[in-house]
């Protein structure tokens, strides 16, 4: 900014002699000479305006460290010591620290736009902390699934804590509403790329609560989402959050995933309705599977012409006769992660 100004200033100087032009476009261009500063005889020295410094850089890095620690703890809890109680406590901490204390800014969800802006606007730069906030949850998702959503995201935490009696929505509704985040992501990235607006921040339903102040419309919207969240599990996460889309892509490749073990399932069916997000698939009859060599040929063909064999496209993987849990993906269930019949727990 300052460098830019210094250049403009140099370019300006000759213009100052062309009084009429300059005064017409900027009437105050000469005004520093209008009333020269007096020479005080009483020894008066002008005070310095008190200009408080912004929050220190060290504290910004502390935020990154806290995010990192919370993500590590969430991954550890999810994979090694799953317990509702510990998750609840971590969720509460995230809500208090990232939400109410840091007032929800900058959060990984909104950082999508900073990344987009810096990629498209050659004049802008991006602080390291923002890149860290963008990348850390994604990298964790690449290894451990969406641990960020589970208990670190302050927006998710707000909804998690109001989830009183979640009902399962029909699969079709979930699927349809699940397309909204893609639209939202696209529009938000477009708006940030052209430098028009940061829509995700503007329409963040909860940041008004974190800051204890927002426009009436946003408070109503936030209140509506929270009220809805008491009977529909995490509506913002599942049906709006654009960062969730990125996390979903990442976690689909994740290495240490939460899965069920089909061979160990005794089909008690107690879990069928227990997931408030509809992620547990009900048992489905096993389909006759084709020989492996034929499937490979089909795959090769699919690469050439994906729609040439629509009939096969709805098939479930063999082995999905048992319940499959997929923490990564609220919409499409866990079909990808199924094991072959009788091959026990997932190998990789």
């Amino acid at each position, binding site marked *: 900014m300052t460098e830019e100004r210094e250049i403009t*200033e140099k370019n300006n100087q000759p213009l100052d002699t062309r009084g009429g032009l300059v005064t017409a476009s900027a009437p105050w261009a000469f*005004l520093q000479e209008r009333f020269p500063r007096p020479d005080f005889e009483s020894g008066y020295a002008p005070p310095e305006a008190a200009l408080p410094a*912004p929050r220190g850089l060290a504290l910004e890095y502390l935020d990154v460290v806290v995010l990192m620690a919370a993500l590590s703890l969430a991954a550890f809890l999810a994979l090694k010591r799953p317990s509702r109680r510990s998750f609840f406590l971590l969720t509460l901490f995230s809500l208090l620290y990232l939400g109410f204390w840091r007032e929800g800014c900058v959060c990984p969800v909104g950082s999508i736009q900073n990344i987009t802006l810096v990629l498209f606007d050659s004049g802008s730069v991006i602080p390291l902390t923002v*890149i860290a906030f963008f990348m850390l949850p*994604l990298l964790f998702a690449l290894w451990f699934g969406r641990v960020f959503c589970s208990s670190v995201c302050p927006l998710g935490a707000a909804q998690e804590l109001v989830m009183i009696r979640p009902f399962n929505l029909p699969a079709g509704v979930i699927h349809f509403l699940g397309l909204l985040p893609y639209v939202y992501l696209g529009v938000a990235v477009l708006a940030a790329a052209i430098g028009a607006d940061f829509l995700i921040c503007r329409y963040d339903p909860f940041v008004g609560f974190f800051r204890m102040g927002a426009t009436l419309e946003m408070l109503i919207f936030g209140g509506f989402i929270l009220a809805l969240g008491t009977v529909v599990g995490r509506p913002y996460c599942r049906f709006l959050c654009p960062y969730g889309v990125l996390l979903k892509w990442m976690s*689909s490749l994740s290495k240490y995933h939460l899965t069920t073990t089909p061979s160990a399932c005794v089909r008690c069916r107690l879990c069928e309705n227990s997931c408030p997000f509809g992620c547990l698939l009900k048992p489905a009859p096993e389909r006759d599977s084709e020989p492996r060599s034929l499937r490979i040929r089909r795959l090769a063909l699919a690469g050439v012409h994906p729609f040439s064999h629509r009939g096969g496209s709805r098939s479930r993987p063999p082995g999905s006769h048992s319940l499959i849990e997929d923490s990564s993906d609220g919409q499409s269930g866990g079909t*990808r992660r199924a094991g072959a019949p009788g091959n026990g727990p997932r190998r990789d």
Partner: protein
Amino acid sequence: MVERESIDRRSFLQTGLKGAAALAVTAAGAGAAFRLSTDDRVWQIDPWKCVQCGRCETECVLTPSAVDCVHAYDRCGYCNLCFGYVHPNALEQTTAAENQVCPTAAIRRTWIEGPYYEYTIDETLCIGCGKCVKGCVTFGNGSLCLQIRHDRCVHCNICAIARSCPGRAFSRVPARRPYLLKTGGGGGDHGRRWRNPSASS
């Protein structure tokens, strides 16, 4: 012995597409790292671009706004009759409240010597309406300017005022030099007299 995990076409395609998308996201993050700044960025107003529209008072996510008037004393003429202080249409030129520009009486006027007076802003009273700035810029030296006070600003990812500022006066500045006063002050080059950048156009 473990059998190879079987995979069907749908899941193969899904994984492939998501993998490609994940790669793109990672690349975007890495690409952004080319424009890395080790310093943090904060919002600030360029007083040369501000047209004192009054939105700084109303658009900020905080109430009262994080924007306050800041006096760049270096530029001030210490005028007896300050139109940042007293209303130009005032019935009489006195310091009575109804003649003051500031709606909250946040400006204090102190006699220094001879015909010279010092004007001080009380930040706890200032609401950032910019009325005094308009008076000072129109009739005086323009030593009053609106600035975001970084002790109050919560550093929104997108400043709500920046979005609607008609002068496009907001930008992200390095946190080490967080103020843009016309001359002097914490962030500016002390003693420099900046000219209006827009005068070149």
